[in-house]
């Protein structure tokens, strides 16, 4: 078997793998990244005014179980509330099909146990991550506005994107209630930046800004990392991490583009394959030292899986709202983010004033036949949607494990998700529905309907979590697997708790910090 060598082997090219690879390349490490997917050609990407229709095709599905491409792996759902997960296996990973929300966690998110008596504290503080949040903002080209009273110290490099009529209308609603709101922090360019063109404000389609304006790991970190010599091996799937006799990583066994099994040796191995893929790889990496999977000596790899919970409300307004114009969440409210015991649940949620999408999406639920046009005209473009994303507290019973009945194109067992939504989450989402209705009515909606709750489908968190106690965590504060000196895990799986904002901003910041930790200890591996 042919063997190659590098300083650092990174598995996964998404938000974490890209940021970490780019940072380590900057610092001088020789990095090789393995990505089971390929580069995604922009012309192949569903975008434009008929994007909603393109996304209905099997080949563009967000679900790997529907898409069933060779680079995908099956993810079965076993629990009562398990979601049909969405993920994309390509260079850039989940950052190729995301809302571009780029909000940071609050300082309290890192101290849930201390403040609220539930779950676990992170082994790091907000202040430890703050410089990396700033660096990540610059690398990704974040837009937003400083001075938000609900967030610590954000100073995004670019101005916020427009609010549009729908955002301005809801802003007045929030003001009437005396509630917080703020223009969203987004990984979408509001001005030309770093060689990429600003959002063209086309206002049609989820990706309606133009693909270059929407930041992804592919069009930010990877462009620079490749220029600095990082090697990115696409269409290669890592089968397992191999260990030497001292229980240190020796490298990885992977399938090359032709399916042949090969070995790559590395001084350090970093797993960044997302909260499902990372758990799957660790569980598939069985050895005499770790018969139940790498890092799984306490049996908690895959456990404490979190997804975020969602609910919301839609309001119909008589004036034109052009709710499709913001192809992003134009503003948010964190009036209900921090715990308030009087509400009947712990933790909280963010309200997002959400782009409602195009007419095809709005037509869902509109009756067919003679009344169709009248009803459609009432709804489009007169609708505004308020979405709530709520913190999903970790539970040991919610987990990712292997599904021996299904395997990927290389014969490696697939993943299985077992999940049930907690009563705390349900109470939180009922509150969120009520508050979403309240603000829509305060803004002038003539008809409001609520929806949800449902389990999120794309934020995979907690399955290899950070912590100081090896009995309750998989990796330490430096992201190093307890008991294995040269294997690191950084991505959504590292989160001990999930906050109530999209995880991508925090994943990128953690990866940058992890890269610095790896470099700081380089005397251990050079």
């Amino acid at each position, binding site marked *: 078997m042919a063997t190659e060598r590098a300083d650092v082997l990174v598995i996964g090219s998404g938000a974490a793998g890209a940021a970490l690879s780019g940072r380590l390349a900057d610092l001088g490490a020789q990095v090789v990244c393995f990505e089971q997917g390929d*580069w995604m050609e922009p*012309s*192949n990407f569903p975008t434009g*005014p*008929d994007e*909603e*229709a393109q996304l209905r*095709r*099997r*080949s563009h599905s967000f679900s790997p179980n529907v898409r069933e491409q060779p680079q995908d792996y099956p993810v079965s759902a076993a629990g009562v509330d398990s979601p049909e997960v969405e993920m994309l296996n390509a260079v850039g990973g989940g950052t190729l099909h995301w809302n571009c929300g780029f909000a940071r966690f*609050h*300082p*309290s998110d890192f*101290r849930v146990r*201390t403040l609220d008596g539930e779950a676990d504290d992170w082994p790091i503080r*907000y202040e430890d991550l703050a410089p990396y949040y700033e660096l990540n903002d610059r690398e990704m080209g974040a837009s937003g506005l400083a*001075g938000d*009273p*609900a967030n610590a110290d954000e100073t995004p490099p670019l101005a*916020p994107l*427009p*609010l*549009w009529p729908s*955002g*301005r209308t809801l*802003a*007045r609603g929030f*003001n009437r209630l005396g509630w*917080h709101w*703020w223009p969203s922090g987004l990984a979408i360019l509001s001005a030309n930046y770093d060689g990429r063109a600003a959002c*063209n*404000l*086309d*206002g*049609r389609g989820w990706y309606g800004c133009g693909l270059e304006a929407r930041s992804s790991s592919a069009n930010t970190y990877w462009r620079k990392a*490749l220029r600095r*010599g990082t*090697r*990115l*091996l*696409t269409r290669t799937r890592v089968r397992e991490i191999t260990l030497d006799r001292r229980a240190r990583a020796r490298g990885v066994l992977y399938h090359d*583009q032709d399916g042949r099994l090969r070995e790559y040796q590395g001084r350090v191995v970093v797993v960044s394959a997302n909260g499902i893929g990372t758990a799957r790889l660790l569980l598939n990496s069985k050895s005499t030292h770790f018969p139940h999977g790498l890092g799984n000596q306490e049996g908690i790899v895959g456990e404490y899986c979190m997804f975020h919970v969602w609910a919301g409300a839609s309001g119909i307004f008589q004036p034109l709202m*052009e709710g*499709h*114009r913001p192809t992003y969440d134009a503003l948010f409210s*964190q009036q209900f*983010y*921090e715990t308030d015991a009087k509400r009947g649940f712990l933790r909280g949620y963010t309200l997002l004033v959400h782009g409602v999408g*195009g*007419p*095809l999406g709005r037509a*869902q639920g509109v009756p*067919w*036949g003679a009344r*169709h*046009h009248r009803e*459609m*005209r009432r709804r*489009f*473009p007169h609708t505004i949607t308020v979405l709530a994303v709520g913190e999903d507290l970790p539970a040991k019973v919610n987990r990712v494990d292997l599904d021996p009945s299904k395997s990927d194109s290389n014969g490696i067992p697939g993943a299985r998700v077992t999940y049930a939504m907690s009563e705390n989450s349900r109470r939180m989402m009922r509150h969120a529905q009520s508050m979403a209705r309240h603000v829509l009515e305060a803004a002038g909606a003539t008809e409001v309907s609520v929806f949800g709750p449902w389990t999120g489908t794309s934020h995979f968190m907690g399955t290899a979590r950070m912590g100081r106690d090896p009995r309750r965590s998989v990796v330490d504060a430096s992201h190093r697997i307890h008991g294995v000196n040269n294997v690191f895990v950084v991505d959504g799986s590292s989160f001990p708790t999930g906050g109530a904002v999209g995880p991508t901003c925090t994943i990128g910041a953690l990866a940058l910090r992890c890269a610095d930790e790896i470099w700081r200890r380089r005397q251990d591996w050079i």
Partner: protein
Amino acid sequence: MVAQACARLAPAPRPVIPERSAGLSSEARSALRLVIDEMIPGADGMPAASEVGSLEYLEQLARDHPEVRDELETGLSRLRLLSIDDVAAPFTNLSPPQRLQALLEMEKRAPREFGLLRDYTYEAYYTRPRVWRLIGYDGPSVPDEHEDRDELLAPVRMMPRLYRLVL
């Protein structure tokens, strides 16, 4: 030099080329034209589905995507069977009131197959540029809110700190 080597290593992007199929049968095409105009008729100043090219859109879609053809054929064949069961005639031979009644029955008795026909009809209508122009789903626009964003934010800026400090 390293970058050049990486560029060589990067494989050429592989476009997704859908498998092409034979498309809809002529019987299915005739039935589909009637179905889409029952679902989205010309009314209230808006054109019927067949007037904006929805049928042609679906025919092309069925040719490009075998799974779409299969789903349309499934829906249409269920509609045909229900029509024969109820009035002893295929859907294409029914009068306009009978067609409406047949679709209402299908919605009740075969909701999954009915949903396929309805969803494809909506897709074939709301992806037509002529419809976009009529409903206000048009191109780029220049927002005008910058002048009042600061005014709207003024009360929020006066709020006390909302996040909890952690020692």
